[in-house]
């Protein structure tokens, strides 16, 4: 049996052990991405084999947390897919402005770049002081980074371009302070976002939402888990509320699809019916 087949066996055993010991179930994650992430974590660890890692992980919570951080780390960008943000300004905001106050859930926010982007957009479109955003992730290490709101300065040039082509109305540099090689987001933005731990696989929703954003998170899940998460969103989204998923994701063929219509073609912005 070659090393790679052994690794696959050890991987299945490890995931089963983690589920039994810690209640984190990765069986409904897409295999290719999960394996790549665990492989990446493993080659950067000191363990000789994945079985060695397992012995330690099952006994030592810190060792488990290290693995968990490695395999649940999603990346986030500011104003990724500028046409999406433009469509948000044009199709979602006019509806949100009809409410005195709106609640927004950013599910799987990772290090928070997209949550900050959305907050910037809402402020520019006249929603300042009229919204609360809950930004959640399974991974506490990335949540702390999101709370800190400090990002590499070298990314800001790209983010500025994204911001502008996404319909940005001000100068992007108004929103952060440059310090050495970092950009520190404006505290006023941070205060509008509540960062909290939440596991889409097992946790329930928390209250009624007007807008839910979950972009490029479901692509890591198998169909059964996608269905579960979409049901969770549907459960807490108010009638007339909006659901935004990634540009290469779709509600087509999903159980909740009949209650949703896509309001911006190809931008994957869906509105829940009142019926």
């Amino acid at each position, binding site marked *: 049996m070659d090393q*790679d087949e052994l690794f696959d066996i050890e991987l299945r055993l490890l995931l089963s052990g983690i589920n039994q010991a810690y209640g984190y179930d990765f069986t409904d994650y*897409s*295999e*290719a*991405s999960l*394996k*790549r*992430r665990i492989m990446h974590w493993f080659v950067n660890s000191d363990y000789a084999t994945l079985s060695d890692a397992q012995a330690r992980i099952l006994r030592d919570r810190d060792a488990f947390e290290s693995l968990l951080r490695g395999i649940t780390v*999603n*990346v986030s960008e500011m104003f*990724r897919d500028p046409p999406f943000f433009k469509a948000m300004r044009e199709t979602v905001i006019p509806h949100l402005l009809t409410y005195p106050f709106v609640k927004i859930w950013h599910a799987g926010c990772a290090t928070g770049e997209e949550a900050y982007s959305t907050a910037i957009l809402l402020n520019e479109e006249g929603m300042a002081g009229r919204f609360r955003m809950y930004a959640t992730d399974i991974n506490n290490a990335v949540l702390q980074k999101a709370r800190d709101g400090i990002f590499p300065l070298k990314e800001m040039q790209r983010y500025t371009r994204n911001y502008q082509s996404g319909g940005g109305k001000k100068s992007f540099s108004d929103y952060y302070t440059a310090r050495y090689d970092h950009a520190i987001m404006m505290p006023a933005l941070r205060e509008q976002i509540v960062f909290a731990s939440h596991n889409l696989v097992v946790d329930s929703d928390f209250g009624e939402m007007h807008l839910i954003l979950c972009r*490029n998170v479901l*692509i*890591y899940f198998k*169909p059964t888990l996608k269905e579960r998460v979409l049901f969770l969103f549907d459960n807490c989204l108010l009638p007339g509320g909006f659901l935004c998923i*990634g*540009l*290469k*994701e*779709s509600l087509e063929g999903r159980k909740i699809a009949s209650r949703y219509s896509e309001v911006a073609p190809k931008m994957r912005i869906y509105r829940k019916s009142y019926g």
Partner: protein
Amino acid sequence: MDRKGNGRFRAVVIGVSTGGVEALKILLGGLQASYPLPILIVAHIASEASNGLALLLDDFCSVRVKEADELEEIVPGTAYIAPPNYHMQLERDGKITLSVDPPVNFARPSADVLFETAADAMGAGLIAVVLTGAGSDGSIGLKAVAAKGGTTVVQCPMNAVADSMPKSAAAVIKPDYVMPLERIPELLIQLAWE
């Protein structure tokens, strides 16, 4: 049996960078619509316009060319282009998955990600091709393909617009075939019907 025909191969994967549009026109243009294998392509083409490369090639080629969708099941006679800004992976059940994991070799999509996952999924049933390009993306992936018994093809560096991707690939392993671009369609046809 989910595989098509009796051939030993089940899919072709291609990695290409600089000079990619012209190279893909020649390679895909040399295949018939009835080509019996699915083809998955990572091309580093700076294009914000999603779908642009797929539409261009689809107009030009007999095989169907489309941008890959999430959870799409791969079928023969179709070439799937990785969407800009996403990694494309092949799962063991023959479906495509996408990811926004960080760039690999400064590239997203990355040929290494496609090749490694496809090697896992298809084993000896895979043909992997590294074409013209700057950088070294695809080399590590090609090694994984060879380790799983897959067949490796590298465009002759002297014949490439940018030679570093094929050179790097041929330095990492001894490819099964090194040949000029113009001859690769013929090879792919021959292998597919083997």
